[in-house]
């Protein structure tokens, strides 16, 4: 599992990367009431704003962590945005991306480095 400075977690699953946001992020955002996910099949470039999250407090964007193609999105999360609060690193995942350059994963933090960043 890798982590971005934007509080996304990236979990390899076969040749895909599953992306969500960390428990630290969901705690900071508060109760999440709306999630807008990218379209399946969309080709995205690293740092594109591809997800909108609205908490009771404010809207925020999630950036594409990698270049690639969106191959699956969590429709259960769109129907029940609270999943992101309840199970941030499990059922609250956002999308699965097929990276066009898997080496982009190397620049992200491991768990120890991420925990140090939010400490």
């Amino acid at each position, binding site marked *: 599992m890798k982590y971005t400075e934007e509080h996304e977690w990236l979990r390899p699953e076969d040749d895909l990367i599953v992306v969500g946001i960390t428990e630290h992020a969901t705690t900071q955002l*508060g*109760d999440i*009431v*709306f999630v*807008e996910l990218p379209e399946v099949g969309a080709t995205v470039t690293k740092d594109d704003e591809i997800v*909108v999250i*609205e908490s*009771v*407090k404010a*809207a925020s964007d999630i950036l594409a962590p990698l270049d690639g193609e969106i191959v699956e999105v969590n429709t259960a999360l*769109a129907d029940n945005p609270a999943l992101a609060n309840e199970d941030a690193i499990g059922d609250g995942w956002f999308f699965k991306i097929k990276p066009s350059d898997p080496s982009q994963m190397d620049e992200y933090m491991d768990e120890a480095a991420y925990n140090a960043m939010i400490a």
Partner: protein
Amino acid sequence: MSDLHQTPLHALHLSLGAKMVAFAGYDMPVQYPMGVLQEHLHTRAKAGLFDVSHMGQVRVTGPDYASVAAALERLIPVDIVDLPENRQRYGFLTNDAGGIRDDLMLANRGDHVFVVVNAACKADDIAYMTVQLPDATVTEITDRALLALQGPAAQAVLSALDPRAADMRFMDVATLTLAGAECWVSRSGYTGEDGYEISVPADQAEVLATALLAHEDVAPIGLGARDSLRLEAGLCLYGHDIDTGTTPADAALGWAIQKVRRTGGARAGGFVGAEVILPALGHAARKRVGLLPQGRAPMREGVPLFASEGATTQIGTITSGGFGPTVGAPVAMGYLPTDLSGTGTTVWGELRGKRLPLTVAAMPFTPANFKR
């Protein structure tokens, strides 16, 4: 941070684990560990305790109530003269253009008028009233905190401390003894729920708040849920939904101007901006309305409104919006041209470059539970 004022309950907020934010020059709790959503739902289900000590508490005195009331009626277009003793009423200070300087609550306290004004406006309000009311004395009460206890359990909780609380009706005012403190209590609030606002001596505020929080039905509630509660209740937030550029007619606040102050009434007009406001009642070109986004995306303050998905001319703006936890969907209010403001009309908001439909809806979005 050091420049921020603290309320008498500041230490209590910190001990309760509140997340603090700067609001109107005060360091205030925006939420507690329960979180905004649950705080909102708790208030509608049981009772919430709010610290609203940042608001201005003002005493206006003069030779007698009648003369103070008559003087205030030159600044505020509501019936103050005939307000019975120990009754409270909503009102606003207006300007020459018919705009709203501030909205407020005022009460007949026998020998004086007790006024509660918005935190961000209080210095201006007091300076303005002091100049405009030369025969009255305008005094800010700085040695009292202000608490709000709101929700269906509020009566049971408060009457356990002083049984007289149960005898009060909506908008009644009384002096009660709560946890040993002499409190000025009104049966009102700003959540759409039954409840009380309690002015308590600052040095007894923490004891009272702690006594109220000891009841199993009472939870501390921050400014975050205060905002979503008042939005669902269709109540205006000064500086957002109303300001110096909106008249009471635009803001659909004509209900607050009693017949006696309107054209044809016994004390018609005679207040600042009357020549603009009175003819506009029922004839305003634009109107504050409730708006329900048809999708799930909240639409917040500043979202521009259009008559159709492709229209190029903006017709209005959302002035408050967010997720309504009790409604279970996004809710908003904003201004629209009167001819497009009918309930059921579809308008379009532009959010992140996309046009999304909203339906004009009656307010409040959740039924009011006042004890009339």
